[in-house]
């Protein structure tokens, strides 16, 4: 270490430091309000999937939008924390369970308009605290080289059969969508059944991967034959990798439970400073234009009846859905977590 000083590098360091600090302090502060109103949105939905909608809204209304995107749950925590003086006006999320959770904590305000009423009741809070904007369903994706359509399981509960040992993959049980699915199972089939099912998953060597995209890729390259994930992953895999995959919606029989359809949605924060603009935004989210974008961008299901799905996506009304309303589902999520803790999963 003891060596002559590196004078030139010393100088560089000092210059760089001065530069950085000056640069930082010169950064523009929060965008000031302009004519046409202002709205601050916290979005857990990734930017590429929401920015087109926001841009359209900006053009249509002239409202200045400040979009803060980030991790869903971290932003939800932020919403909780900011009370009673919230900065964010609208909270946008991919997981309706979070919306319900925030409602229970009492940090949302209600809003129901004619536009919102057009969304089926199942996909919004009963008291109007939040509304779903696009839907995603629990489907099965399969690798066509490894499974023939005839071999596909009629019900999702068949995956604990020994013939599917080691051939199925799904998302981690504690991830939002999967958690919601387990909850719906608990509500529809009871705790004992669910416990048995969950424990058998491990026994049957179901491969738990870190997220839907991983499952989709695993199915695409033939690592597993079958994957349980959100329906749109099939379309994405086709689009990007042109993999030999197919999609299958189980439990569609008359006595079956159907597939669970979850929703991504939005809510207005209690005490928001820009309530008028927030309401306009929520209305816009459920309008036909925005719904169309959700359908095209990520192959999700538009929840506004009458809006077409993207090509290759089976329309929602052709599918049997698990008859559970999302707000009920959201209320039960905590109990499912306790349930999982209790059975040691």
């Amino acid at each position: 270490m003891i060596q002559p000083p590196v004078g030139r590098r010393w100088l560089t360091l000092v210059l760089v430091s001065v530069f950085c600090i000056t640069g930082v302090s010169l950064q523009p502060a929060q965008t000031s309000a302009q004519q046409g109103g202002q709205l601050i949105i916290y979005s857990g939905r990734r930017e590429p999937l929401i920015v087109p909608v926001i841009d359209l809204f900006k053009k249509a209304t002239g409202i200045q939008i400040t979009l803060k995107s980030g991790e869903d749950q971290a932003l939800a925590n932020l919403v909780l924390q900011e009370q009673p003086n919230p900065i964010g006006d609208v909270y946008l999320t991919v997981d309706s369970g979070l919306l319900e959770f925030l409602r229970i904590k009492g940090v949302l305000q209600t809003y129901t308009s004619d536009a919102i009423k057009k969304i089926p009741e199942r996909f919004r809070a009963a008291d109007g605290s939040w509304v779903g904007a696009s839907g995603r369903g629990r489907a099965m994706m399969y690798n066509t080289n490894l499974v023939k359509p005839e071999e596909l399981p009629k019900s999702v509960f068949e995956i604990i059969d020994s013939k599917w040992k080691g051939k199925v993959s799904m998302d981690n049980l504690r991830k939002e969508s999967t958690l919601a699915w387990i909850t719906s199972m608990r509500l529809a089939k009871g705790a004992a059944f669910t416990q048995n099912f969950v424990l058998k998953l491990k026994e049957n060597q179901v491969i738990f991967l870190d997220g839907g995209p991983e499952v989709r890729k695993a199915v695409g390259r033939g690592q597993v034959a079958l994957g349980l994930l959100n329906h749109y992953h099939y379309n994405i895999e086709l689009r990007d990798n042109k993999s030999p995959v197919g999609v299958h919606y189980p439990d569609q029989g008359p006595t079956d439970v159907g597939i669970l359809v979850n929703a991504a949605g939005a809510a207005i924060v209690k005490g928001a400073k820009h309530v008028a603009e927030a309401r306009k935004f929520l209305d816009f989210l459920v309008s036909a234009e925005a719904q169309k974008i959700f359908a095209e961008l990520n192959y999700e299901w538009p929840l506004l009846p009458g809006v077409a799905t993207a090509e290759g996506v089976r329309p929602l009304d052709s599918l049997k859905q698990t008859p559970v309303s999302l707000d009920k589902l959201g209320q039960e999520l905590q109990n499912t977590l306790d349930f999982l803790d209790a059975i040691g999963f």
Partner: protein
Amino acid sequence: MSAPNVILQLDKVTKAYGDHSANALGPLSLQVISGEFTVIVGPSGCGKTTLLRLIAGLERPDAGTIILNGNPVASFSKWVAPEERPIGMVFQDYSLFPHLTVERNIYFGLKKKNLDSKQIQHIENLFDLLGLKTLRSRYPHELSGGEQQRVAVARALAHQPALILFDEPFSNLDAHLRPRMRRELKKLLRELKSTALFVTHDQTEAIELADRMAVLRAGQLEQLDTPELIYRCPATRFVAKFVGEADFIRGLLQPNLLETELGNFAIRTSTKLATQEVDVMVDPRSLELTPLSGNISSEKQAQIVLRQFRGAEILYALRLPSGQELRAITIASRSFSEGEFVQVKLSSLPAIYYQNKRFDLV
């Protein structure tokens, strides 16, 4: 002749250990005379480095006063920081600044433009005197141990301090270089009329360098005298053992007689004393060894247990009949072999020590 100029005075200076369990040093009082070389010598752990650091101002005493050039620099009410004291210091590891050349090391703390020509001349003179002219642009890690030491000395002297401190300056040099370096340094400092305070654990070094020597033990001053006096008249048993090559045997002190295994001596004491046991100092070079002749009683015989050839002298380790051991150093012309019995005679009256302190005889 004018009274000697006391440049440094320590009055009952005390420094306690970090945990305040005991005193590391002191209370200690001593004086350093201007123009003299004072050497503080003692075994490891005796506190000599602490003493030096207290004088330098690198540590603060817990009690006592330090007065430099008539001005108190450390006392109950006053404290002068080391950078304000006109003291220079040469550290044991030289502490040369590794990122500066020799020249910049020596000129450290002195802005050339602020110096007048006399001062610059003085420093350039140091370069000459210490043989550093060719090393000006070298870096410390490119120098040998001896060269580094010279740079350290020059650096301290460049500020023309009133007092210059040396912390074991030769301990990091090769053994064969030391005598020469000692002589050269002493010559240089004399030329510059410097006052120096050395700290060392090597008594040979101390004796060579010192005008006056201070022997330290466990934080206390045992003796402060010229080297000759310390060598010939050690004030305590410890000093005797440390500085010289003395041995001690038991003796019995009676009112007019000193009885030892090496013979009895008639003495006179100043006070009336009861008979008591004392320690008798034996200088190895004051022993005469003669071969046994038949009619000497066995009491005065000693057995040679070790013989060590030392060039001009021979060292013998002797065991007396009582079991006590001591050494004798004789010139090489007479030689005995190990295991032989010889007759030992003490040629002069030895020094007597009672409870570590020298016992004064009239």
